[in-house]
Structure formats: C-alpha cells, structure tokens
C-alpha cells in the first residue's frame, strides 16, 4: 500500500479495517499518544488497558462511519473512555487495590525547570483526585470532549458530570495551593 497517497487518517480506515499493517501502524502512531495518555493517567494497569482499547478499536473499525457526526479521533477517545469506565467499575465492585499511576516524570529536558516542575505538580495532583473526577477533567480539558458526550459515555446526567468537573477542578487547585 502506498501510504504516501493517503491524505488523512480517515483514508486509512478501510485499509486498517481490512488488516493492513502499515495503515494500522499509522493509526496507532497518530492516536496512540492520546489513548496512552488516558490509560496511564486513569488506570492502574495502563499497558493492559491500552492493548484492550486498541483491540476494540481495530476490531470495530469497519463499523466506523467517517461521514457520521463523530471524527475518528473522537470515536477512538469514546471507545477508550468507555473501556476505562468499565475497568473502573469492575475494580470498584471487586474492591481491588489501586496502583499508583505511572507518570512521565522526565518528559522533556529542554523544558524550563519551573515549567517542568509545575507540570509535575499538576500530574501528581491529578493522580490524587478521585478517578471519576480525573476522568472528566482529562477528557474535557486535555482532549476537548464536550461534557454532554462524557455524560453519555459515563451513563450519568450532565449535571453529575459538571459537578465532578467543578469538584475536581476545585480539589486540583486546592492541592496545588497546598503543595
């Protein structure tokens, strides 16, 4: 497959759905960081979650309609979100232990140290938030998903998601001030 001719990742969908390895690699390269970012910040076993999400995405790709209302990016984020909610619920009812999230601490040596320090503090404060609050904040602020879509995937009312957002942001600001 001559990927040079491909104009956007949407064009990769039928190829990737058909199992083309290069097309799949291009999708993973493009959208993998967002998926990985959510998995590592929201899941105690991010590697397993990441692999499971991609199994779902690649398995359902043939059913994704690029002309529909959702972009490929939004759809992949929604699949990721749904999977992470499922994992959270399963962990909750089983009463499993919660592992500390893995964080990218040494991300960029060129970052000014104050900026890097601030980012590290935000990552740490985020990791302390209740998972439901963290999920809403990351999906909304980092990935730009609208709150109504988040509410739909979470299976809760829009007001509940807003409440989690506001409480999460308040707690985040509080933690950053404390520290």
């Amino acid at each position, binding site marked *: 497959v001559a990927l040079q001719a491909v104009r956007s990742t949407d064009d990769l969908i039928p190829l990737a759905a058909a199992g083309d390895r290069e097309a799949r690699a291009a999708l993973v390269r493009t959208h993998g960081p967002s998926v990985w970012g959510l998995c590592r910040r929201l899941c105690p076993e991010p590697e*397993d979650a990441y692999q499971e999400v991609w199994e779902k995405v690649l398995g359902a790709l043939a059913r994704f309609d690029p002309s529909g209302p959702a972009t490929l990016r939004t759809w992949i984020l929604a699949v990721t979100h749904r999977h992470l909610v499922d994992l959270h619920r399963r962990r909750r009812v089983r009463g499993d232990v919660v592992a500390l999230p893995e964080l990218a601490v040494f991300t960029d040596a060129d970052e000014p140290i104050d900026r890097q320090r601030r980012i590290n503090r935000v990552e740490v404060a985020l990791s302390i938030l209740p998972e439901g*609050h963290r999920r809403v904040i*990351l999906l909304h602020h980092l990935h730009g998903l609208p709150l109504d879509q988040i509410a739909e995937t979470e299976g809760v009312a829009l007001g509940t998601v*807003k409440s989690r957002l506001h409480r999460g942001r308040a707690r985040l600001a509080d933690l*950053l001030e404390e520290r």
Partner: protein
Amino acid sequence: VKPPYEDLSRLLGGDLPDPEAQALRARIEAEPAVRGAFDALSATVEDVASLADEPAPPALDARVLGATKARSRTARAGWWSLGAGGLLAAAAAVALFLGPRVPQITVVDGEQLVDGRANILADDVPVEIDGKARVTVEPAVVTVAVLEGTARLTGPSGVPLVVGAGESHTIGESSTAPSVTGTLPTEPASRIAALEAEVHELRRRLEQSELQGAFARGQLTAQQGPPSEWPAEVGEAYRPAAFEQHLKTALADLPGAEIHALDCSEYPCIVTLRITDTSPGWEARVEAFVDELGTEHYPNSDTWMAIAKSDDEGHVVGGVGLAFSPEYSLTEDMRTRTHYRAGSLLQEIEFGPAKP
C-alpha cells in the same frame, strides 16, 4: 479559610446562577485573595490542557499491531498503595522490576522501597535509583536512603547529586542546601548515627521481605482482608435482591438520603448512603433508620455501620456505610474486608463540600 474554588469553577464554566455569580464577581473585584484563587484556578485549567501525551512504549505498540492476545500482567512491575486513608494517603510500597523498562513512580506522601532501577518523583524531586533504596516523602521534606547502588537526585536549585550506598540525603526544610559540587552535605554526628540506624533497619526489612511480589500482595491482603465469598447457605434477607428491596422500602422513611453504592459482589452486601439532608440531628435519624431496618428484617444480626462526615465552611457532606450479617458469622478477615470495602466506597462520598 479556604478559597471558594468550587463556586469559582462554576463561575468559570458559566454554571453559577446569576445572583450568586454577581456576588462572586463582586468578591473577585473586592478581595485580592478571591481574585488570586480565581486566577490560580484558571491557571490550573490551562495547565491541564497543556499536559503532554507521549507515545506508548514502542514494545507495547508492537504488541498491539502484532494482534497478540498476550497481556503484560506477568511482566509488569507492581507497586501498590492503599486506597483508603485520605487524599494524601501514604504510599507504602514495594516495587519489583521485572522488565527492561524503567518504571516511573510518583510518591506523594509516605515511603517507597525500591529494588532495581526506577525513576521516582518524590514530591517535586526527581530521583533516579539504581539499587536498593528507600524514598520517604513527608510534607516539604524528601529523604533518600540508599542501601545498595546509587540514587541520583536533583534538588530545588537544579543541581544534581549522587547518594551512594549506606548514605542518605534529605531535601527540604530540615536539610542543608545541596552542595554545588555534588557531594553530600556534612551531617552532624547525631544525624549520621540516626541515619546509620535507619539504614540498618532498612537492610533488615529488605532482607526479611526479599522483595517478593507475594510480599507486596500479602501485605495488602492483611490490611484489606481477602475477598470474601458468599456462603452456600445464608438467609434470604441477606441476599442481594432482598437486601436491596428492604433497603429501598425503608429509605422511604429517611428523606434526604440516597443510595450511593450497593456492593454485593462479595459477602456481605454493603450499601453506602449519601445524606443530602444534613440538617441538625441527621446522624440520630440515620441511626433510628438502621435500628428500624434491623428490627424489621435483620433480627439476630450483626450490624456494621459507619457514619462519615466532612464539614467545609458549613457545607456538610454525610455518608453512611451499612452491612448486615447473621450474628457471629463474620470472621476477623471478613470484618477487615467489610471495613475496607465500605471505607473505599465512603471515601468516594467524601470528596468535597455539598452545595447548600
């Protein structure tokens, strides 16, 4: 007095009703502290939006593309923290490093034992460990004690230094400033003696545990109790369907309370209630409700109940955990487990002030 962050967040999102919004805007104009809190909140939102998403480890992407069903679980490092115990819960943990990747671990409070290679973010201090070491984080103080190998850390001034085997270094209010030459600062004799004792104790603990995965898991099991399976024979009233039904019927007589979570995945069923009406006397009303429920449906039962309350500037959040079991039927492990399960659920309720 804590800043009204939650209301400021609502204002920022356009979710604060008009009269309250106007009043809060007036406070922002008039009170520097509130203005500062608003600015801090806005900056926090921008910080989150600017976080970087790095690519997944190449080996993981390769596994995804290889369409293999293999899971990483058997080769993953495991470091564990107890979920209960407050938002800044201590992370007493043991790390095992089984794969080639260097784990990144954040320690907010408490201690982290390391055997192998790891990059630790201890409070704000990055620490690279290659060997056996303990990193302890207390408020504003980070201590790195090295048993074997080395730990490289970067102090607040950005100057790197190396802590060798048998040495310890503290960054924070109680420490001397890190040396620009990278050598350890001179410690008073008493401090050295204390550190030697600490290293000795650490060595003893490490030798005892041998840092096996079973140790980490066993340690947690002791504090959380092993999962508690449903007994083959138990009264119908204790089973999930009946428990839920009795509960919902009884709740009709307790206005201002709603089910937060109902967990019957293990024995016994646990319910947590969120109390929305926290007017004076609510605890007594809850206790009366539990008495009534117990008398009606669970005679000759043990009752496990916990009432949780947080009070922030007069905004009270109430939570109740409740479980019934036949009298004397719960083992010590089951009690531990019940406490842990309910405590975890209650913690979810206690995340912030309720709106009046």
